[in-house]
Structures are given as C-alpha cells and as structure tokens.
C-alpha cells in the first residue's frame, strides 16, 4: 500500500510540474539512491508481477529501497531505451525477455538499443515452455495424428499464435519445417482471443505458452506436446520423447543492467536476485504462473542469450519477417 501511495504522490508531483511549469522541465535529473527495477510493460502484467515479487525480497537483503518502475509501450522497446541511459552503478536494472533481446535485434532495421553494447546480463529468472494444442472437440489425438492430418489436408494446416513476430510464431514455423507442410500462420492479438478461438474450434491448432492452455486441458483444449527438455505435466509428452529431437521452444524472463555497471556490483546484485527467487514463497508463486525458476549466474545468462540467437536466428531469417 505504501508503494502505491508513494507512487501516487510521485505522479501528482510530476504531473503538477508538467502542468504548471514548461514541458522541458519534465525530465529532471534522477536522484541517486533507491534501486529501481525497470519493467518495460504495464503494471499488472506477468513481468510486472514477477518484478514486484523480487523487489519485495531485495528490499530486505540489500537493505535499500527497491521500486518497480513501469515504462510500457512499443512492446517493451520504450522502457529498454529508457533503461540504457540510466546510471550504471547498480541502482537500475531492466526486466527483459527473448522478444526484446533475441527477436527484436533481428527484425528491426533501426533499433534504439543494442542488447550487447548497451547492457550486461545479470541473471535469468525463469523459463516457460511452449505447447502445441488442438481444440478439445478435435479428432486429432496426438502429434503423429496431427502430422498425418496435415499431410492429407494441407489447405487447412493453419496455426494460431498470440502475436506476429513472437517466439510462438517462429516455433510454429519450426514445426512446419519438420512436418514438411507449409503451415499458414494466423496471429491473434494476445493469448486470450487465441484461446477463445481454439476452444470454439475456429482454428485447427495453436502454439502458445504452457500456462494459458493447461487450465483448459484436456476438456476444452487438448495439449498434444510440450516443448521443454522434460515433461511439464505427467500426461503430456514432450516433442523430444516423441522423436522430434530438435523441436524445442522455451521462453524466459531475465534481468540485465546498463553496460558500464562494474563487475563486483553485478555479482552482488546477482546473488541477491538469485537468493530472492529461490525463497520458497517466491518459487511457489512463480510455479503457480506455470513457469520454472532458474536463477542463473551472469555468465550462464550470457550463454543462454548466445544460444537462443543461434537457434532462432536461422528460422527468423528464413521467415522473412520484418517489423519496420
């Protein structure tokens, strides 16, 4: 409650400045001191909830004020650009995901930040797996059945994803390559309308993240396979077990810091963040969101970024997808 009040007081002050003074005074100097986690998405979303869970624990372990600052807009790019100009002294961290650090650099000809030059990795927080699902009313019961059906009905081989240019979009293309059928991609505006269309069998199959589909499995939506390294649900096989060795699709959330942040500071923050997410109550909440806690070192997170770019790069290039 206190943070809400202080946020409101802050907003009133800033708004008053904007209204009564000139607009050019709006971007005054940032005050050093409190640590802020910049979330480039609106309050209340998945990243925001996660960041607030972590901020709450960091307060105690670092004995500092830790605030979450929402800078939403342009799919996270506004907040990311904002974060790169923040002081590199450990007082600012940025919440990121593959869309911002893996896909965007490949699909934008002009991007206002460089993930490698402007930022240093701090830690990967959690991972979430992709799933391939069909409507509950569908006659298709497993991945093999789906592949056969697509061969027989190539004109109907359409799949939905939560957004154009999202990792699930490219994950669908990965499956398409394996199946040897040209699957047509139908993007939706988010998971909710996609799930609605899938339940109503408006689309024969969909690719999305695990937790948006599992709540409807197996009655209204049938998840055919999950795309992680091991089973996420006892009754649902992974693509790997089914023999599709290279079909793997995992998204994640992570924290980065502005690039000039000194190494000792990064290490200290990394320890505090990893400690926070491994606390039982935090871990439990993250698992409730359908994802798995990782909490890597800064180096490991750097390697994950490199690995993901090598893995998705060829698929994204082959798709010809361009965002601007």
């Amino acid at each position, binding site marked *: 409650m206190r943070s*809400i009040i202080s946020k409101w007081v802050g*907003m*009133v002050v*800033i*708004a*008053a400045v*904007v*209204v009564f003074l000139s*607009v050019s005074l*709006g971007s005054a100097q940032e005050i050093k001191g409190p640590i802020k986690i910049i979330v480039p998405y*609106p*309050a*209340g*979303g998945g990243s925001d909830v996660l960041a607030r869970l972590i901020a709450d624990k960091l307060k105690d372990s670092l004995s500092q004020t830790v605030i979450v*600052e*929402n*800078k*939403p*807009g*342009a*799919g996270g*790019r*506004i907040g990311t*650009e904002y974060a790169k100009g923040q002081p590199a002294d450990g007082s600012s961290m940025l919440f990121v995901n593959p869309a911002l650090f893996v896909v965007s650099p490949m*699909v934008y000809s*002009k991007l*206002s930040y460089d993930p490698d030059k402007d930022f240093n990795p701090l830690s990967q927080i959690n991972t979430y797996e992709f799933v391939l699902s069909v409507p509950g009313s569908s006659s298709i019961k497993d991945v093999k059945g789906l592949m056969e059906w697509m061969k027989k009905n190539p*004109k109907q081989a*359409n799949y939905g994803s939560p*957004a*154009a*240019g999202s990792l699930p*979009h490219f994950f669908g293309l990965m499956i398409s390559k394996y199946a040897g059928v040209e699957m*047509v*991609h*139908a*993007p*939706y*505006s*988010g998971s*909710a*309308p996609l*799930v*609605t*269309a899938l*339940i*109503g069998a*408006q*689309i024969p199959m969909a690719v999305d993240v695990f937790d948006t589909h599992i*709540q409807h499995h197996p009655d209204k939506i049938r998840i055919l396979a999950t795309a992680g390294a091991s089973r996420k649900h006892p009754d649902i096989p992974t693509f790997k077990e089914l023999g599709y060795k290279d079909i793997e699709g995992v998204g994640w959330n992570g924290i980065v810091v502005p690039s000039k942040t000194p190494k000792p500071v990064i290490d200290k923050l990394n320890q505090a963040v990893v400690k926070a997410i491994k606390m039982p109550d935090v871990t439990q909440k993250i698992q409730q969101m359908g994802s798995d806690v990782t909490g890597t070192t800064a180096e490991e997170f750097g390697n994950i970024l490199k690995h993901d770019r090598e893995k998705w790069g060829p698929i994204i290039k082959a798709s010809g*997808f*361009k*965002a*601007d």
Partner: protein
Amino acid sequence: MELVSNLALGFQTAISPLNLFYCFLGVLIGTLIGVLPGIGPVQTIAILLPATFALPPVTALIMLAGIYYGAQYGGSTTSILVNVPGEASSVVTCMDGYQMALQGRAGAALTIAALGSFFAGCFATLLLAVLAIPLSELAFKFGPAEYFSLMVFGLIGSIVFASGSVIKAVGMVVLGLILGMVGTDITSGTQRFSFGIPELADGLGFVPLAMGLFGISEIIKSLERREKREVLKSKIMGFWMSKKEIKAAAPAVVRGTLTGSLLGILPGGGVILASFISYMLEKKISRDPQSFGKGNIRGVASPESANNAASQTCFVPLLTLGIPSNVILAMMAGAMIIHGIQPGPRVISSNPSLFWGVIVSMWVGNLMLVILNLPLIGIWVKLLSVPYRLLYPAILLFCCIGIYSVNNNTFDIGLTALFGLLGYTFAKLECEPAPLILGFVLGPMMEENLRRGMLLSRGDPSIFFTRPLSLAFLLMALAMLIVIALPAIRRKREDAFREEGEKS
C-alpha cells in the same frame, strides 16, 4: 437453479464491505457528474481509470459501472429542475420533465424518474443474468467471418444512430478508421504510420483520444459561452404522484424498460438512442400525443426507464462477445484489459465471481441510487451553482494526472491536448465525435478479423457469405443502409433529431 446459485455468488461478491463501498462511491460520483452538465461518464471514467489500478479488478469494475448508470439518474435531475440535460441521454427528459416542474410537479417527476429507473435496473439485471450464458455459448461459434460482419453491422449502426448529417457521420467513422490504423499491424507485425516514433508503435492511445475529444474540447467550448444557469426558484413540493399519474406512468415504465433493454444489446446503440426511441414510441401510441411536451408524466417515465435499462444491458455484448457497443463500454473494455482480464466469452467461466459480482452490484447500486437520489435533491441543486472557473481547472489537472499515469509518459499529455483542439474544431463544424471513437475501436478489430478470415480460408472471400451468422449480420447491415437511404425515412429522422436539438 443454476441462475439462483450464480446470483448467490454475485451477491456474495457484491455485498462485501469493500465492494459495497466502491459501488456507493461509483454511483455517488455518477450522480454528481450526471447532475453537472458538461461532465459526463465518458470523461469521468477516463479520468478515474488509472486510479482503479490499485483496486482488485472486480471492485474497479463495480465502481466504473456505478458511475455509468449513476450518471443516468443524475442527468434527469438537472433536466427536470433546470431544463439543461446533465447527460446526453437526458435530453428527452427535459421536454416533459421541466414542464412538469413549472407546473409544480417537479417532485413527482423526480420520483417517477427514480422509480422508473429502479424498475428498469432490476429488470435489466435479471435479463443480463438470464441471457449471459446462452450468449457466451453462442460467442464460441463466432469465427473471424462472424466478427467481421458484426463489426460492419455495428459501424453502419453508429452512422444511422448518430444525430445530424449522415455525410458527417460517415466522415467521422472513416477518420476513426484511419486513426485506428496507426501502430503495429496485428496480422503482419509491422508498424504503420508511426513515423519512427516509438510512442506510436502501439497505436494512438484510447484514453488521450477519448479524453481530448470529449473532455478537453467540452471545457474549451464552455469557456466561450457565458455562464447562464437558472436554478428553479419555486419549491419542489410533493414527491408523491397522484393516482392518475401512477396509472399513466406504470405501463410507460414497462414499455420504456423493454425498449431500452433491447436497444442496449444492439451494437452501436446504447442509452441516448434508447431514451430517444422510447419517447417517440410513447408519443406514437398515445391517444393524446398533443399533451407530450406539456408535462405528460409518461414522457418522463418511459425515456428515464429506457436509458437506465440500456445502460445495463449494453454490458451483454461486452461481457459475452468482448465487443464494446459504445464509447463508455469501450472504456470499460480498456479497464478490464488493464486489470488483466480479456473481455470475451471466457470471462464467465474464468472469473465467475467478477462476472456475477458486477451484475448483482448493478442491482445493489440501483437500490442505493433510489435512496441517494430522493433525499439529496436539495444538495444537487446547490451544486449546480459552483462556478465553472473553479470547476474546470480542477478537472483539467485531474485529466493530466490521469493521462500521465497510464503509461508514465508525457507524450500522451501532448497527444491529449492535440485531440482536445481537434475535438473543439469538430464541435465548431457540428461533427459528432462518437462515430469517430467507434470507428477507432471497431476498425482495427474489423481489419484484424477480415484478414484473419482470409488467411484461414486461404484467400477465399466466400466465407463471409456462406456462414449463416455472418450472412445474417451483413444482410442486417444492408437493411440499415437501405433504411437510411430512403428519402422519406431520412427526412423523418432529421426532423426527430432537430426537435431534440432545439430543446437542448
């Protein structure tokens, strides 16, 4: 029986102390802004939207809904007492309500407005509860073709129902469609008309657009006219109606409720249309049409019931199909999305306590309004004398705070100012901004579904005509076009709106 258990769940949610409090706050604010001419529920909800972030979603929605139907109550008070419609939907109430007040029957007019609204509110709550589940089942049958055709129907509806010139309404819809194009295209993921400005990558914000076009422009407009408000001097006496009045008003309330409920469900409809149509209907079936406009109680009872019924039933398409049928509902949809709830058929199953809680809260809120309205009339009348020079700067300040806090970005404040000027220009040109807003909201959805439909059919446009539901919507849209094109009907429509315009 399921209905009973659902309503029980709703009651459980709605009468928790927190929700009761915010429901009360909502209807109180609603009545307040309803009484004050110039500030309507659209601006108020836009301003208060960010303030609800800290609340649980169900509480936030209960409060916002309360503002909406509360405003319908408050609007009638100003219409009857001052002959200035507090709300656009209360325009019709002025005709007979003020006449009744001049004849010393203000008390009776206020009473029938409140009781009629309460009856309509009760009926609409029940209707909402009964219709919601079957309609949301139907919603799963809605594919891209059906959605596209429904949007076409809705957009044409917004033209037909707009007051004033048809050409201007068409122009405003098209302008709305164009503004809706700005931002990232859902189908291709590519940016359009954003000119490299990252703030435009998500499209023009709905809050800056709505607040600028309605709120800021209204304030500018008010500044150029002199304050001229004459509060009724004579005493408001006798809150009770005579037997004869009750006998005349009761069937009118029922007819108004039915008309309003029906028109509320239609896309593009809503409260203004409901009150207007019900008044025309009442006049048409009356044996003594000459007495309308001279203080006939039925002329108050029917439209007041209709606008309240419609303000509740228009939640049906939003909560079941995810389609907002008017500007305020579009705002409510925005509020739901901000709280992480995608409006659509899954709301009932995934958030049952939210869904039923909001529905039942409407009934609870209506009860509060009756209790609130009758004894507080004296205070409302006093409020009408607060000078605008104090009121407007305060509103402007709250607008700025509200807009900034949506994205924590000053860009949006500049955008709002720009749309405020545009809105003022529209007012000078006598162009109604409501069709623009509907075009802005429905346009991108229409494009998205058209292209998705074409993708899924692999480029075969026949899906829009071969699926029966889709075909039905297209035929209805066509019928509406024909109706508006027929010269005789067009003339009548223009006469009717002119009559309405003269009174306001």
